[in-house]
């Protein structure tokens, strides 16, 4: 042995001794590899300064969407979407209640999954954010000038709507999908009351393309496509060269209906469903398919009054694969794929094959060639299956275990999340060669690169949306917030720079540059533009009106009093509508309203706005009400009384402020 080799052996031995000692010492306090020397200053946003990005995170079972600042990880706001929110009265007030209507009645909760910002030319434009409810199939549209949910549309013929709410390059369509196939009513299917075991025969999946009005953002169901009863899991519209196409992963090509964890994991390959939506749109416009009766709710805040209203959608056009010759294909994908993500130029389509050891990346060019050459291996219910080998660009080897999702940066790199091996893996988009990997804590689900699903990703930051939190923060009992991790991806090596806890369970997130959103914010509503039917613009106009057992109170709030603040003549058995208008015209001066014993939420009323709540007093007495938002130094004094008399009393209706009734 040469001296050199001998020294090397000692050297290596020394290292392994140190490593062993390190491991034996059980370094629980230092198991995270913190990337940079100065991670703290990278995420530090000084007091009074703003973050570089907004991050919109779906809340999962919170039913709402939470907004964070990046890189600080500060929680900025929670947008009420599918869940009743007593915080401000969303879903409780007369103005917002109708937003939560469904064909089943008012569903007070949702399961938000995929946040998708609106796009222009394949880039975020800062107008709206769309998000789906997986449980009761619905899609919501959030306006980014107000951070409010303006519209919710229910999707017919759909169960377990997971592969939603993806957005096309110019926000022409939002795509919604069946995950849990269901039997469909006649004439589309053979009826809904069928044995579960007749799944293969009687169950169906649907793809829905929701048309978006370019000026108002208003959604309508463009058309649906009936597809085989697989579980359509995730999707993405193409970009650039592939922008006319939309891709969906599906598992359960076994068509199992019980113990899916085993029975839907038998085949070596499942599929990606590719649809040319432009051609499908043309087929629908040409009158192909059939119009079927449906009964779903479409809830929209009236742009004039701001009051939400429900309309029932009664008809929808449904196409079959046979109506879409040359526009619908299955592309084989390794076993039970999950995420699907299209590269910024639209050429590469990567799937997270969650039970596979590789990440398959398909080529759009090769796919088009295969279509031209009719390079297929058969068909399924009229949908041709393209040959896997013919469309494959490459498989990423060593991409980790349980790859779920892929996102892209602006430098030609792709990043995938791994649930099982709990890491982020970076690879070269052209070759699939792995360049870097970094552990994540723990079990990453989605990951997001800023702008990572657009034609021009912003890059710089990557966030791992982890599914398991455990010991990352101070413990809060058995239930904890989810833990997210922020990486700096501007260099060759990924640097972990921040852990931050977030509410609910974000399934996906989108980062928009602050400048795209912050300048257009509504600070308060113009009182002169308030068209709520129960608005009260001045204290002079306040009144209390009785109509049988209904009493309408037209009330104003301004620092620091309500008008009227004394009301008499209300009787047990009355239904009292309290319409409160905040007549302030100043930024960040909301007033709240709370009534003792009201079986309803309180409400928060923004300046210039009217909110109404229903109160049904049950017993005689004097009921105090007050402002719940600390509005001024005399906020405590912002209070009033309502006298409730027995049903048969003859107390006259009287009201006022600063006078004896």
């Amino acid at each position, binding site marked *: 042995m040469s001296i050199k080799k001998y020294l090397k052996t000692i050297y290596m031995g020394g290292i392994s001794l140190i490593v062993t000692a390190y491991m034996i010492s059980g370094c629980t306090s230092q198991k995270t590899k913190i990337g940079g020397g100065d991670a703290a200053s990278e995420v530090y946003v000084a007091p009074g300064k703003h973050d570089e990005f907004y991050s919109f995170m779906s809340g999962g079972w919170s039913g709402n969407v939470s907004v964070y600042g990046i890189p600080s990880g500060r929680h900025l706001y929670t947008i009420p979407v599918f869940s009743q929110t007593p915080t401000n009265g969303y879903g409780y007030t007369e103005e917002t209640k109708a937003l939560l209507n469904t064909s089943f009645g008012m569903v007070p909760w949702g399961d938000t999954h995929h946040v998708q910002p609106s796009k222009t030319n394949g880039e975020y434009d800062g107008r709206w954010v769309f998000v789906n409810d997986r449980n009761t199939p619905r899609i919501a549209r959030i306006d980014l000038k107000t951070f409010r949910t303006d519209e919710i549309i229910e999707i017919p013929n759909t169960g377990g709507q997971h592969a939603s709410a993806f957005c096309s390059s110019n926000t022409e369509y939002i795509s919604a999908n069946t995950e849990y196939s269901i039997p469909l009513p006649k004439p589309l299917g053979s009826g809904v009351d069928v044995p579960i075991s007749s799944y293969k025969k009687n169950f169906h999946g649907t793809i829905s393309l929701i048309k978006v009005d370019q000026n108002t953002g208003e959604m309508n169901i463009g058309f649906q496509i009936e597809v085989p009863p697989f579980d359509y899991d995730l999707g993405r519209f193409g970009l650039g060269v592939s922008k006319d196409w939309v891709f969906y992963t599906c598992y359960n090509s076994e068509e199992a209906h019980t113990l899916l964890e085993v029975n839907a994991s038998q085949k070596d390959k499942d599929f990606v469903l590719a649809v040319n939506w432009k051609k499908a749109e043309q087929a629908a416009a040409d009158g192909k398919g059939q119009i079927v009766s449906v009964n779903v709710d479409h809830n929209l805040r009236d742009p004039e009054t701001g009051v939400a209203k429900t309309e029932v959608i009664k008809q929808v056009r449904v196409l079959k694969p046979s109506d879409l010759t040359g526009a619908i294909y299955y592309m084989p994908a390794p076993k039970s794929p999950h995420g699907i993500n299209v590269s910024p130029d639209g050429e590469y389509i990567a799937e997270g094959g969650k039970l596979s050891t590789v990440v398959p990346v398909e080529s759009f060019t090769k796919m088009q060639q295969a279509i031209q050459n009719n390079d297929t291996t058969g068909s399924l219910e009229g949908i041709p299956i393209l040959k896997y080998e013919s469309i494959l660009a490459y498989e990423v080897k060593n991409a980790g275990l349980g790859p779920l999702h892929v996102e892209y940066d602006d430098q030609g790199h792709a990043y995938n999340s791994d649930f099982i091996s709990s890491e982020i893996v970076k690879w070269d988009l052209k070759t699939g060669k792995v360049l870097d990997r970094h552990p994540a804590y723990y079990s990453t689900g989605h990951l997001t690169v800023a702008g990572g699903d657009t034609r021009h990703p912003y890059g710089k930051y990557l966030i791992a949306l982890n599914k398991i939190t455990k010991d990352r923060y101070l413990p809060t009992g058995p239930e904890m917030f989810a833990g997210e991790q922020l990486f700096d991806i501007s260099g060759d090596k990924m640097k972990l720079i921040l852990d931050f806890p977030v509410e609910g369970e974000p399934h996906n997130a989108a980062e928009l540059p602050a400048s795209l959103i912050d300048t257009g914010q509504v600070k308060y509503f113009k009182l002169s533009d308030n068209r709520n039917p129960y608005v009260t613009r001045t204290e002079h106009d306040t009144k209390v009106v009785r109509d049988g057992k209904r009493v309408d109170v037209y009330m104003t709030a*301004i*620092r620091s009093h309500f008008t009227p603040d004394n009301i008499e003549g209300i009787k047990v058995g009355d239904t009292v509508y309290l319409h409160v208008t905040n007549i*302030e*015209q*100043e*930024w960040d001066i909301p007033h709240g309203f709370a009534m003792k014993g009201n079986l309803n939420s309180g409400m928060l009323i923004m300046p210039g706005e009217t909110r109404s709540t229903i109160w049904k007093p049950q017993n005689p007495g004097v009921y105090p009400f007050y402002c719940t938002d600390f509005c*001024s*130094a*005399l906020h405590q*004094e912002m209070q009033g009384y309502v006298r409730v008399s027995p049903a048969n009393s003859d107390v006259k209706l009287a009201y006022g402020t600063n006078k004896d009734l």
Partner: protein
Amino acid sequence: MKLKNKILLVVASIILFAVFLFPLWKIHLDAPQYPEGLGVNIWIHNITALHPHNLETINDLNHYIGMKAIEPDSVPELKIMPYAIIFIAVFGFIVILFNNRILLTGWLVTFTGMAIAGITDFYLWLYDYGHNLNPNAAIKIPGMSFQPPVFGSRQLLNIHVTSFPGLGGILVVLSLLIGIYVLVNEIISSKKRKLQKG
């Protein structure tokens, strides 16, 4: 009058009309809660908000200490002042037309008198606004008045008030200074002429 002085008087008269385009005076209110700024512009014929709805905000803040609400429609000066300024401007043209130094002197005296009256009135209005407080106000501080300054800054509780002339006000002063310069220049040159003759 020399041609140059005539031209200067034309300028002095014309720029007076600028008060209809720019505020005479500005009052800025700085407080921690108003990073976006708060204030009013005082015009020859109106009082307006620095930012939308500032007037309502100021009135709302002031009701706690019992100050009267600022209601531009009920300030008589705002109805009179436009005529006063038009009168001065027209008077200026008459001076040029008649080319008379006594008239010029009369114009300057009137102008100065009106300017002093305007500032005094402004001071008295601010005095009344800051002292004549509603006895039932929620916040009462014995011995404290809330009179904003005519010119300069003053701390009034949490609010730092700064008053200063706007472009309109500056142009009025400039017009007056031009008038004085013309008069002085005319007197000096006529004395020179007399000396030369003598």
